[in-house]
C-alpha cells in the first residue's frame, strides 16, 4: 500500500481525509492557496505544499500545480475530496499517468456520470428509472423549446456538465424557458466549461434521496443505505439524514438494488452516490416511485451520517479499494444500519436570506457530547474568505432513533459558538423546531415554505 497521500482539497473535507490517513499510519500532505496559508487543514497535515494564488483556477483547480505538489512531496497517491478536481476525468488520468494511485473511480466512470445526459441514457439502458428528459444535450433555445414540448412542463433546466445546484432553474412554460435558457447556458459555460443543457421534467413535490455505494477492488458493488437530502436552499443541501423518514422498506430495497445496478453499469470502484428524486403525494401513503437524477463519483459531503449508522469509515474503504484490498467489513454481509443520524451544514451565510458573509472568526467553540460529531475546517482566528464555498463545518448527531438524534442536535446547535463571519446556525434552531421537519414528512420545498 502507498505510504504518503496528497489530499488535493481544503477545509473540512481535507481535515477529515487527513485524520483517517493518520489513523492508518499514512503520511498526509496538504495543499493550499495563498489565502489558506496556515489554515486548519494545513495545520492538521504532516506536510503541506503551496499551490498558488487564492482564486481556485490558479490553485486548487490547477492540475499541473497539484501534480507537481504530489511529486515534490513524494506522495504515491492522491485523494481529491469532493468538488475542485474530484470529478475531473482528465485529472484522474493524469494522476495515473504520473505513476500515482488515484483514490477514486475509473476515469471512464467519472466521464460518463459527469455528463448528465449520457448518464441518464446509460441508466435508462440498464433499466434504472429516469424522469422524462432530453436524450441529447441542448445548446440552442429553439431546440430547447421543441424538446420541452415533448417532455412536458414544469421543467428543470440544468447544465449537462454541472453539479452543486449551480445554474439550475425550474420553468413553468415556454416564456419562462426562453428567459432562463440563456442564463443557464452562460453559467454552464462559465462554471463547467460546457454550454450544453439538460432539460428534465421537474417532479414536485418530491424528496431528494440518495444511495451510498462502494465499488470494491474485486468488482463487486455494495450499497450502504440511503440519505435524505430534501432540506435545500437554492437547490443546495443544508441538512441530511439517514435513514430517510419518507422511504418504506420496500422502496429502500428497490432503490438500493437500482443504485448497485447503476454502479455496475459504469464499472464503478470506490465510494459513490446515486442521487434520486422520490415524488411525494402529501397523503400518508409512502411513495413508491423513484427516478435517477445523477451519480456523484466521489465521497459526498454528507457521508458522515452513513458512517454514524453503519460504524464504518468510508475514507478508509476508499483507501483500501484504491490499494486493491478488501473492505474492512464482509461484503456479503454489509453492516446493518443502527439508529438514526442527521447532519447540519454550518455555512458562513446569514440565516434569513442565506447570502454569504465571509469574515475573520473571532470566536469558535465546537459542541461535544454523546453521539455528536463535528467535521470542521476552521477555528478561532481563521479567516473565511470569499474565494471558496461557504461550508465551515458539519455538525452531526447520532441517536438510537430519530427523536433522540434531533434532541442531541438541538443541544449541540445551542452549544456551537461561531462569531465573526455570518453564520446559519440560527436557521437550524428554526429547522429543529419546524413541525414539518420534525414530523419527517417534508420535501425539497421545505426551506422556501419556511421563508415565504
Amino acid at each position: 500500500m502507498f505510504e504518503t497521500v496528497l489530499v488535493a482539497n481544503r477545509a473540512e473535507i481535507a481535515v477529515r481525509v487527513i485524520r483517517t490517513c493518520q489513523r492508518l499510519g499514512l503520511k498526509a500532505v496538504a495543499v493550499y492557496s495563498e489565502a489558506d496559508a496556515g489554515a486548519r487543514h494545513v495545520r492538521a497535515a504532516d506536510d503541506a505544499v503551496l499551490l498558488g494564488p487564492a482564486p481556485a483556477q490558479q490553485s486548487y483547480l490547477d492540475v499541473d500545480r497539484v501534480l507537481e505538489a504530489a511529486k515534490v512531496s513524494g506522495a504515491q497517491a492522491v485523494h481529491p475530496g469532493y468538488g475542485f478536481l474530484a470529478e475531473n476525468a482528465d485529472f484522474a488520468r493524469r494522476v495515473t499517468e504520473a505513476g500515482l494511485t488515484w483514490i477514486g473511480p475509473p476515469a471512464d466512470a467519472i466521464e460518463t456520470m459527469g455528463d448528465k445526459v449520457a448518464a441518464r441514457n446509460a441508466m435508462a439502458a440498464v433499466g434504472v428509472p429516469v424522469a422524462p428528459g432530453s436524450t441529447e444535450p441542448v445548446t440552442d433555445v429553439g431546440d430547447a423549446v421543441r424538446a420541452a414540448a415533448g417532455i412536458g412542463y414544469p421543467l428543470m433546466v440544468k447544465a449537462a456538465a454541472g453539479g452543486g445546484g449551480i445554474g439550475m432553474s425550474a420553468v413553468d412554460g415556454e416564456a419562462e424557458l426562453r428567459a432562463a435558457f440563456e442564463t443557464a447556458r452562460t453559467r454552464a459555460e462559465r462554471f463547467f466549461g460546457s454550454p450544453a443543457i439538460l432539460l428534465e421534467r421537474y417532479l414536485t413535490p418530491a424528496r431528494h434521496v440518495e444511495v451510498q455505494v462502494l465499488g470494491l477492488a474485486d468488482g463487486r458493488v455494495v450499497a450502504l443505505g440511503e440519505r435524505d437530502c430534501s432540506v435545500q436552499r437554492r437547490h443546495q443541501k443544508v441538512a441530511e439524514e439517514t435513514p430517510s423518514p419518507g422511504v418504506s422498506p420496500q422502496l429502500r430495497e428497490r432503490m438500493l438494488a437500482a443504485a448497485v445496478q447503476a454502479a455496475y453499469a459504469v464499472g464503478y470502484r470506490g465510494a459513490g452516490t446515486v442521487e434520486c428524486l422520490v415524488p411525494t403525494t402529501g397523503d400518508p401513503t409512502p411513495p413508491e416511485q423513484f427516478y435517477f437524477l445523477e451519480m456523484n463519483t466521489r465521497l459526498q459531503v454528507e457521508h458522515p451520517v452513513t458512517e454514524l449508522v453503519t460504524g464504518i469509515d468510508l475514507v478508509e474503504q476508499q483507501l483500501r479499494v484504491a490499494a486493491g484490498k478488501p473492505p474492512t467489513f464482509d461484503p456479503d454481509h454489509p453492516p446493518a444500519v443502527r439508529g438514526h443520524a442527521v447532519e447540519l451544514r454550518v455555512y458562513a451565510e446569514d440565516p434569513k436570506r442565506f447570502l454569504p458573509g465571509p469574515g475573520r472568526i473571532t470566536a469558535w467553540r465546537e459542541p461535544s457530547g454523546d453521539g455528536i460529531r463535528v467535521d470542521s475546517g476552521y477555528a478561532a482566528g481563521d479567516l473565511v474568505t470569499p474565494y471558496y464555498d461557504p461550508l465551515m463545518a458539519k455538525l452531526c448527531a447520532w441517536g438510537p432513533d430519530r427523536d433522540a438524534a434531533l434532541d442531541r442536535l438541538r443541544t449541540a446547535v445551542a452549544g456551537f459558538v461561531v462569531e465573526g463571519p455570518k453564520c446559519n446556525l440560527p436557521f437550524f434552531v428554526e429547522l429543529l423546531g419546524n413541525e414539518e421537519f420534525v414530523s419527517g414528512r417534508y420535501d425539497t420545498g421545505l426551506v422556501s415554505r419556511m421563508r415565504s
Partner: protein
Amino acid sequence: MAEEIRAEMVANVWKVVVSAGDRVEDGDTLVILESMKMEIPVVSEASGKVLEVAVNEGDVVQEGDLIATVE
C-alpha cells in the same frame, strides 16, 4: 439626490454592468459580485444617472464599500 450603493458583504467584483453616465431604473443590475461560489447582483435603489462606478472587475470589496453612486 445622489444614492450611494454599497457592498453588503465581502466579495469579488465579477462583472461591472454599467458605466458612469448610463441611465438606470430602480432595480437594474449595476455590478455582479461573487462570493463563496454565488453570484450576487447589486441593484440600483433609484432611477437616474450613474455618477460613478467605484469598483473594477477583479476587485475585492469589503462590507460597506462604495459600489456606485446614482443620481
